[in-house]
């Protein structure tokens, strides 16, 4: 699925990487635990998380995850947006819960990792 379709499904705001929405996403992983995210070893993954701080972006950077969604309209800082832009990470925000976000994407064919 292209990211711009995913943005529509989640009615998400695009906070960083507006020019990169033609990227393809195949899998999603929902977690607030960054050490767990660091165990992933797949391409085309989107991270869905309620953890809105600089470490969620750092973790994506280290784990080569190129896109993430912050759920429940959690406040996203300017530093997070800057770090995402610097690392060419697409940063999205949705008001939907982690469960609803996961369910909507699963329903549209995004695959689970485990």
């Amino acid at each position, binding site marked *: 699925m292209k990211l711009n379709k995913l943005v529509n499904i989640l009615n998400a705001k695009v906070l960083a990487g507006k020019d990169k929405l033609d990227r393809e996403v195949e899998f999603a992983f929902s977690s607030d635990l960054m050490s767990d995210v660091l165990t992933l070893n797949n391409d085309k993954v989107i991270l869905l998380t309620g953890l809105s*701080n600089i*470490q969620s972006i750092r973790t994506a950077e*280290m784990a080569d995850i190129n896109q993430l969604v912050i759920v429940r309209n959690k406040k996203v800082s300017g530093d997070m947006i800057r770090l995402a832009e610097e690392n060419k990470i697409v940063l999205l925000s949705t008001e939907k819960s982690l469960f609803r976000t996961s369910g909507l994407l699963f329903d549209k064919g995004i695959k689970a990792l485990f």
Partner: protein
Amino acid sequence: MKLEFEIHGGDFVNAGSASSKVKSILKQLNINSELIKKTVISLYEAEVNVVAHADKGKITINISSSAVDIEVNDRGPGIEDIELAMKDGYSTATEEVREMGFGAGMGLSNIRRNSDFFEIDSTPGRGTKAKIRIKLS
């Protein structure tokens, strides 16, 4: 190539900035992306550990054609029981660390999984020393 980073305990905002710099250097050196990922995940977990538990620390990184060697030296409470600390799920992290998305007792096993050599030596009440090696060839 030798790199050194000073890490400050409790500085969660900058945790990961050393890993980020090392990642861009390894990319410039055209290291295979799988090996870069193994290196930066090990280094990032080590950085987070210093920030989470120690007063301050120093990370020294040696990059050669055959390996990345990471040495972490911190001043802090040390680890009483290293075997226990290495167990999945065991953690002494504070609520603050957990709020940052860490502290679930997975960090040391993440380092072990991503490295080719990992050794911890600690003096309780003084600090901890860790050696991590990722082979490049």
